[in-house]
């Protein structure tokens, strides 16, 4: 009953249309701010989530930039390797061990004849992205497991097979083919059966188990001088622009495509900055407008408020009443903006799911917490404005 009477006495003089417009502006401001936060958290989720590990982006194969000055001198010295390992963007470093023996592979089927000289590399097993395969070897093993870059199969299927009138091969068929791998060493050639156990995009090299490389190098009596020309860098943030800067500074090279995330990050940072800035400015304007609405309402009802206080209404009673007049509408704006961000996130999840990019369906806690903080901020500013003008 009291509120009903107070509503008759203290009318909101800001006008329904003006109030609705201001609340729409507030909702847009909150939406932009929350979107900025959500974009940022989505981006970090994509970088960190194991479901979204981009095998190209997270693992960078690094070697010296080859030019006329360092031809034949492309070894990475230990000092540089240590320096790379110490960088904040480095999670771990794996050395690529090259085969130093001559080798060839050839088909054992007349229907599918091929022969080629070949070389291999090996990396520590934790740098291999294929799961559920036994990627080890010993001299009594039935075959040598080999991991081939996907790109090689593409070259075969879409170039070589067409020009040589050979059948195209699916990854499943490729894994069924057994071929002969011959290593040439001090006691003549030794042949093994070999099989492709997996195709990978992570490292563009023919990979065999480290044990096989070591055995082959020993067999060929090649001194293992431990020189390294290439290494694999596992980074926790491929979008970190510091990686590209560091590599350039040290005259190192990697596939620039692998650093594309740093370009994406710049774009995303720009989008987030623009969205956040626009939202922030709009929020400031919205706060100023609501403060003015409070001031206007109190100024227009000054006589009624003075008489109410004269008759015994406490300033707290009036402040609470005015807060109830202004705040729930503003809270509604924040809630609508939050729900819109939720819907946007849900839609984004569905769209990206089709591209095998997995995002959480629900908005992040950071976004929810930001919405909560904005609600508290608005309450604080509105309350302060009311108390300031009631007390005066």
């Amino acid at each position, binding site marked *: 009953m*009291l509120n009903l009477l107070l509503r*008759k*006495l203290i009318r909101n003089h800001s006008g329904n249309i003006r109030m609705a417009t201001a609340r729409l502006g507030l909702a847009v401001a909150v939406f932009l701010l929350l979107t900025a936060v959500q974009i940022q958290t989505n981006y970090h989720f994509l970088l960190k989530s194991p479901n979204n590990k981009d095998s190209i982006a997270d693992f960078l194969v690094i070697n010296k930039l080859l030019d006329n000055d360092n031809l034949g001198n492309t070894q990475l010295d230990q000092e540089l390797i240590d320096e790379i390992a110490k960088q904040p963007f480095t999670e771990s470093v794996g050395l690529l061990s090259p085969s130093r023996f001559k080798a060839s592979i050839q088909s054992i089927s007349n229907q599918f004849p091929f022969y080629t000289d070949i070389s291999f590399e090996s990396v520590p097993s934790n740098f291999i992205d294929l799961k559920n395969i036994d990627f080890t070897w010993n001299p009594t093993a039935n075959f040598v497991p080999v991991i081939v870059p996907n790109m090689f199969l593409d070259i075969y299927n879409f170039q070589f097979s067409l020009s040589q009138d050979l059948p195209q091969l699916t990854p499943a068929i490729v894994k069924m083919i057994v071929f002969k791998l011959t290593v040439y060493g001090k006691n003549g050639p030794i042949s093994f059966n070999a099989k492709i156990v997996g195709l990978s995009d992570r490292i563009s090299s023919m990979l065999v188990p480290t044990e096989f490389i070591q055995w082959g190098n020993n067999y060929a009596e090649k001194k293992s001088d431990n020189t390294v020309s290439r290494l694999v860098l596992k980074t926790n943030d491929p979008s970190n622009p510091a990686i590209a800067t560091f590599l350039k500074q040290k005259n190192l090279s990697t596939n620039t495509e692998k650093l594309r995330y740093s370009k994406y990050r710049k774009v995303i940072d720009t989008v987030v900055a623009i969205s956040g800035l626009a939202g922030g400015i709009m929020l400031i304007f919205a706060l100023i407008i609501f403060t003015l609405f409070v001031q206007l309402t109190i100024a227009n009802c000054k006589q009624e408020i003075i*008489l109410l206080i004269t*008759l*015994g209404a*406490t*300033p707290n*009673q009036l402040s609470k009443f005015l807060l109830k007049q202004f705040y729930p509408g503003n809270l509604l704006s924040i809630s609508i903006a939050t729900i819109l961000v939720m819907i946007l996130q849900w839609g984004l999840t569905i769209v990206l799911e089709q591209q095998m990019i997995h995002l959480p369906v629900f908005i992040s806690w950071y976004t929810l917490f930001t919405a909560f903080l904005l609600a508290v901020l608005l309450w604080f500013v509105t309350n302060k404005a009311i108390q300031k003008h009631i007390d005066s």
Partner: protein
Amino acid sequence: MIFELNKVIPSIIADRPSVELSDVWGKHIIWKKGQFVKITAPSGTGKTTLVHILYGLRKDYIGDISYDGKNILQLNPNELAQIRQQHWSIVFQDLRLFSSLTARENIELKRVLYNPIITEEQLSEMANQLGIQSILNQPATKCSYGEQQRIGILRALMQPFDFLIMDEPFSHLDNANKKIAAALISAECKRRNAGIIITDLDKDDHFDYHISLNL
């Protein structure tokens, strides 16, 4: 519950010779809950000023006024409001009704400003006694001065109080209505064991005054 005035003189009349003759200004006075106090004075001697000072509306005076041991000048706005809700009620000379509310709403507002002690039925009964039942739904300021004065009196009775402060509360009423209004006020004050502080131009016998002073 005690009003204590200690050598209070309003700044605006401090230099007037009439202050020396006053029973109130510059004197030490104690009014207790339950006492009916009449203050009589001709126009221009500060009756309304006294009422406003007692009710905490004016602070331009010398001396001290304390209520229940607390200097009323040192009360913060919320403390003063709570005293006005629960301990002091007032009938203004200039009535001070809300023009945008009906007579009933003006009265009702005071009833619900704090925990109601008067039911809606009692409100209607009192309005009936004062003869304003029929105009309760009219805009308050469209009523006659006599009706507005009775609305103001009824409004003042809607809240709990220890002192009812009235500034020429019957100035627009005829004798018959004065008696009815005074009887209602007296009954309500006795029911609550509350005191009255009333200012008027002339002496009267509307109430059984315990203290009668000239301003």
